[in-house]
C-alpha cells in the first residue's frame, strides 16, 4: 500500500475502530430508547451517535466515511428530525392543545410507555446527531481549505 492511497491513522487504530464503532453506536441507540426510563435522553444519545461517526472519520479518513454516510444523508436526517419533532407537537391538537400527550401512557418502568416522550427523544436524537456531525464535517473541510490556500500563497 503506497503512502498516497493511505488515509487516516495507523493499522492498530483502524482495527480497534472496527470493533468499537458498532458498540458506541449501539450504546447511543440504547441511551435514546431508554431515555424515559433511565438517565440520558435524546440529546446525549444523539451526541453519542455523532461521536461514533466522527470516530470512524478520524480513524479511516473522509473518503470511506462519505461512502458510508453521504452528506445528503446528514442533511436529510437533520431536516427529518426537526419536522418529526414539530409534527409530534402538532399531533397534540388531536387531543386539545400543542404538545399534548395523546398516545396511551402504558405501564411504568416498561420500554413502551410514556406516550409521545420516546418519539420526541428519537426525533431530537436524529436532529442533534446529524447537526453536530455536520458542524464537525464543515469545520474539518474548512481546515483543508485553509491549508490549500497556504500552499497557493507559498507556491
Amino acid at each position, binding site marked *: 500500500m503506497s503512502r498516497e492511497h493511505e488515509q487516516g491513522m495507523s493499522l492498530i487504530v483502524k482495527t480497534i475502530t472496527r470493533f468499537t464503532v458498532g458498540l458506541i453506536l449501539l450504546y447511543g441507540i440504547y*441511551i435514546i430508547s431508554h*431515555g*424515559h*426510563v*433511565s*438517565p*440520558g*435522553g*435524546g*440529546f*446525549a444519545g444523539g*451526541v*453519542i451517535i*455523532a*461521536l461514533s461517526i*466522527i470516530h470512524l472519520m*478520524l480513524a479511516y479518513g473522509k473518503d470511506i466515511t462519505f461512502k458510508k454516510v453521504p452528506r445528503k444523508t446528514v442533511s436529510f436526517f*437533520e431536516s427529518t*428530525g*426537526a419536522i418529526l*419533532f*414539530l409534527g409530534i*407537537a402538532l399531533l397534540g391538537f388531536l387531543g386539545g392543545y*400543542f*404538545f399534548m*400527550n395523546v398516545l396511551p*401512557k*402504558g405501564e*411504568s*418502568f416498561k420500554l413502551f*410507555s*410514556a*406516550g*409521545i*416522550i420516546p418519539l*420526541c*427523544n428519537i426525533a*431530537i436524537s436524529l*436532529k*442533534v446527531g446529524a*447537526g*453536530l456531525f*455536520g*458542524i*464537525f464535517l*464543515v*469545520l*474539518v*473541510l*474548512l*481546515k483543508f481549505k*485553509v*491549508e490549500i*490556500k497556504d500552499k*497557493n500563497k507559498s507556491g
Partner: protein
Amino acid sequence: MIELYILLIFMIIGAIIAIEVKDLLSSVVAVGGVGMGLSMVFLILKAPDVAITQLVVEILCLIILIRATLKVDLPFSTTGRWVLNTVITVLFISVFLFFAKTCLKDLPEFGYPLMRIASTYLEQGLMKTGAVNLVSSIILDFRAYDTLGEATILFTAVIGVFTVVRKQGRKELNEKVEEENE
C-alpha cells in the same frame, strides 16, 4: 462535600492554566480537564442526566477544537498595557461583587425555590406522563416549548455554520486580489 471543593479547586486551577499557558494544545487539554471535572461535579450533585450530556458534549468539543482549529495559526496578543488591563479587571470584579452582595441577600435559601410548581411536577409527573425519568418528562412534556426552542436554536446554528463555510458563491482567490487593488 469535601470532594466537591477539591473538584472546584481543580477546575479553577485548570481554567487558569488554560488561559495562561502559551501552547495551544496544552490549553485545549486544560479546558478538557475542566469539562471532565464539571461532569464529575454534576455526578456528585446527583444529576446523572446533565453529567452524561456534559461528558459527551465535552468530548465532541475537544475533538472539534483539536482537529479543526488547532492547525490554524491564531494571533496572540501579548502586547503591553497590562497595568491598565489589571486595574480595569480588578475594578469590574469589585463592582460586581459589591452589587452581588446587595442582590444575593434577597434570594431564597439553597433548597427552597421561589417557584412552587416544581413540587407539583415531582408529585404528579409519573402519573401524568408515565415516564419514570422525571427529567425526561419535564423537558419533553411539561416544558416541551423550551425544548422546541432549543431545537430551533440548534437548527439555526447548523444552518449558520453551513452558510458561513459554504463552497458555492464564494469568491476565488484572484478576485479577492483584484478587490484589494481597487
